[in-house]
């Protein structure tokens, strides 16, 4: 076997006390496509940022072509031969394709940009990856998939040693992925080492030679893809749930009667394939699946945060048009986004204000909550959810992650929803808060609330759900009733194989 073109040894990185990477090793051989896999918080993006010079590691060294290098900036990484293509295309859509390929390295004649040569050179480079484009057209006039390929053309034109593709396929359709893979294979033949980050298992098995798996900032293993079973891969990524959780009381209760909410063929292009889903009053439906499998997309469609382009939603058997969050809220649906910072909290506002926001929005500005009513509600929910510190006047940004999550939960509970959608409510919060939130879900469902519970942790989904929906590669592939014989193993099998149970 040849020498690796890139080698990272013992890479560690800490962010204000939180360890993002712990002694991670990684190597990349020329002419291979190497998948980097892991769930949220596994450390993938930190590792890539170290490699591209965005972050500087606290420990460890990077070797490129047998020489130790210190990567200090994205520009320097590029010069050293490491180029990155990100999920969101980081090119300028207002410039032409040719300009994007050559920005900063324009061919010149007597000091002036030589446009004719730039265009012909660009056309040649584009053709080399099997594309036919009008290189003088603005990049923005092409679909995202082509923009991504142009980004790859640029990256390769600058330096052809190591190419990092960071989730390039997450918004491409099947034929576009084919196109991308064709380009990747060509580059592989030319000896380029490609680091490929993706959430799609199928794609790993289709195109990758080797896979490195991270979990909680540590290296779990490096395997040849051909030698690694799918189920084993899923197990390595998800790992064992952290123990230490308090036992929950049994709350298995079969769902009966008409569904509180039913989705029929609901789907959205590029986000989630059409699916059917029922949630009954008093029922907890858990959604399991890897990151990027379409979990969040299901939730967003049911809340009207995104527009569905197929299918319909029935509430109590009546068709409901959920085109906006407003429409969903009027139907007593609540949605706690996984992205607390961007889509949940209003950081400047106080805990109290954040808590009553949804109720107040529903009432409109002319009907403010009375001070007594407001304080009573806030006090009740702060106590019920044990939000600390118990001072409602603090800005919500000063609270810990777990308490911020509770504030958001309280915000929706105050509206007394019939369907509560929780997207990763326990992510990034401490064990204590986690158990409390789980207990709360049980209590709420026992009180008759329908709950859609999304979590990356299978154990948690298994503990809480009456019914489990399994997602894989943007499809709801299976819905099974929870029973004692269903365990994490079984779910992982479904995720790995895609076979409905």
């Amino acid at each position, binding site marked *: 076997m040849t020498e690796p073109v890139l080698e990272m040894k013992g890479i560690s990185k800490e962010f204000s006390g939180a360890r993002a990477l712990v002694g991670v090793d990684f190597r990349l051989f020329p002419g291979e496509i190497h998948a980097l896999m892991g769930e949220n918080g596994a450390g993938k993006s930190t590792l890539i940022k170290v490699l591209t010079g965005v972050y500087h590691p606290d420990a460890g060294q990077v070797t490129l072509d047998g020489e130790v290098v210190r990567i200090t900036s994205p520009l320097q990484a590029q010069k050293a031969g490491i180029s990155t293509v990100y999920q969101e295309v980081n090119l300028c*859509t*207002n*410039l032409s394709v040719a300009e994007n390929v050559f920005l*900063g390295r324009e061919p010149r004649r007597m000091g*002036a*940009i030589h446009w004719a040569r730039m265009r012909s050179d660009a056309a040649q480079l584009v053709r080399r990856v099997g594309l036919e484009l009008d290189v003088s057209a603005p990049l*923005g006039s092409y679909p995202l998939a082509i923009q991504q390929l142009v980004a790859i053309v640029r990256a390769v034109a600058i330096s052809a040693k190591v190419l990092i593709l960071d989730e390039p396929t997450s918004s491409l359709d099947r034929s576009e992925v084919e196109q991308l893979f064709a380009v990747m294979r060509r580059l592989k033949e030319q000896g380029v080492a490609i680091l490929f980050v993706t959430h799609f298992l199928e794609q790993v098995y289709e195109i990758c030679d080797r896979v490195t798996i991270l979990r909680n900032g540590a290296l779990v293993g490096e395997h040849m893809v051909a030698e690694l079973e799918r189920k084993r891969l899923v197990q390595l990524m998800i790992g064992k749930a952290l123990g230490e959780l308090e036992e929950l009381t049994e709350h298995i209760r079969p769902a009966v009667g008409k569904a509180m909410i039913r989705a029929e063929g609901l789907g959205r292009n590029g986000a989630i394939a059409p699916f059917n889903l029922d949630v009954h009053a008093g029922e907890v439906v858990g959604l399991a699946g890897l990151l990027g499998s379409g979990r969040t997309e299901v939730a967003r469609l049911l809340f009207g945060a995104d527009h569905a382009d197929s299918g319909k939603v029935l509430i109590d058997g009546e068709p409901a048009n959920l085109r906006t969050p407003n429409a969903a809220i009027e139907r007593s649906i609540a949605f706690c986004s996984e992205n607390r910072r961007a889509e949940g909290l209003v950081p400047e506002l106080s805990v109290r204000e954040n808590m009553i926001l949804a109720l107040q929005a529903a009432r409109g500005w002319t009907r403010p909550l009375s001070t007594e009513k407001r304080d009573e509600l806030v006090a009740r929910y702060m106590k019920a959810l044990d939000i600390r510190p118990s001072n409602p006047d603090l800005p919500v940004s000063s609270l810990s992650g777990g308490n911020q999550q509770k504030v958001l939960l309280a915000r929706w509970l105050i509206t007394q929803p019939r369907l509560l959608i929780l997207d990763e409510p326990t992510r990034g919060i401490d064990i204590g808060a986690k158990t409390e939130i789980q207990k709360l879900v049980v209590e709420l469902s026992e009180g008759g609330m329908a709950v859609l519970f999304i979590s990356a942790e299978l154990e948690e989904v298994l503990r809480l759900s009456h019914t489990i929906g399994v997602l894989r590669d943007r499809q709801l592939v299976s819905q099974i009733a929870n029973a004692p014989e269903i365990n994490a193993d079984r779910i992982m099998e479904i995720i790995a194989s895609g076979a409905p149970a």
Partner: protein
Amino acid sequence: MMSPAMRRRLPAVVTATLLVAMIVSGYLRYPKFDGQAIYDLFIDNGFLLVAAIGATFVILSGGIDLSVGAVAGFSTMFAAWLIVRQGWTSWLVILIVLAIGTLAGLLMGAAIHYLEIQPFIVTLAGLFLFRGLCFVIDDNSISIRDPFIAGIAEARFQLPGGTSITLSAFIAIAVLAVAAYVLHYMRFGRQVYALGGSEQSALLMGVPVARTKLAVYAVSGFCSAFAGVLYIFYIQSGDPSIGVGLELDAIAAVVIGGTLLTGGTGTVLGTLLGVLVFGMVKTILNFEGTLSSWWVRIFVGSLLLAFILLQRLMVARKTPAPA
């Protein structure tokens, strides 16, 4: 179906059509509207053209500069003060005010980039500062009697058909040519467009963002001061309230010329068209006689609205459906 490149030029095409229509109707309607009237467009709007060129750089890069008029006004006052009250050599003074304008732009650019303060606020401070300094120098205008200045101001070139054009108008056109070359044929120009397209992308693509941003505001400062110098040639005096609102006229001309206010798309030739339309509005109202000067503002405002809505429509259609 329009090609994307066509669609991008649509506002400029609309402006060009509008300009031609205005000129033709002017020619048919007013007997006095002749070739000289066209040259007068350049002569009377040379300073606006130069100021708008500077604004084009800034807007292309995704920023905004409110200090244009104030810097221009200060340049006339400071130059007049140095020449008349201090007896300095006039050509040297012109170089000095150009340098001051450039430096002022550079400093504002530095504040915007390094202190991460919004361009709006930084250049607002610039506006206050330079407009205030005008009045600190003098409340009243200072008239300049200097042979060099008078020489340039009165220099005219005879053109065929009994028409003529001033040296100042020539200078303005020369500035336009240089700006067009810089934006189209120099790397700096492409970097300005890249910056306006997406600062984040530009940074990742290796564009020296800090240098480019500083340079853009320096160019704007230089052009503002240059516009002030052309003012001096135009009226042969310094005046503390000259150029009030010039930045708005410049921004309006830039937008009417097809440059997106969000940055990244547009050309200085479009800006020229915008300035000429602006000038034609004034000329026609002048010829019309019955219509008063305030119609210029209303008309320019309406054009601004029309073009902003047009831009909005284009952007809305260009953006692919969100993923």
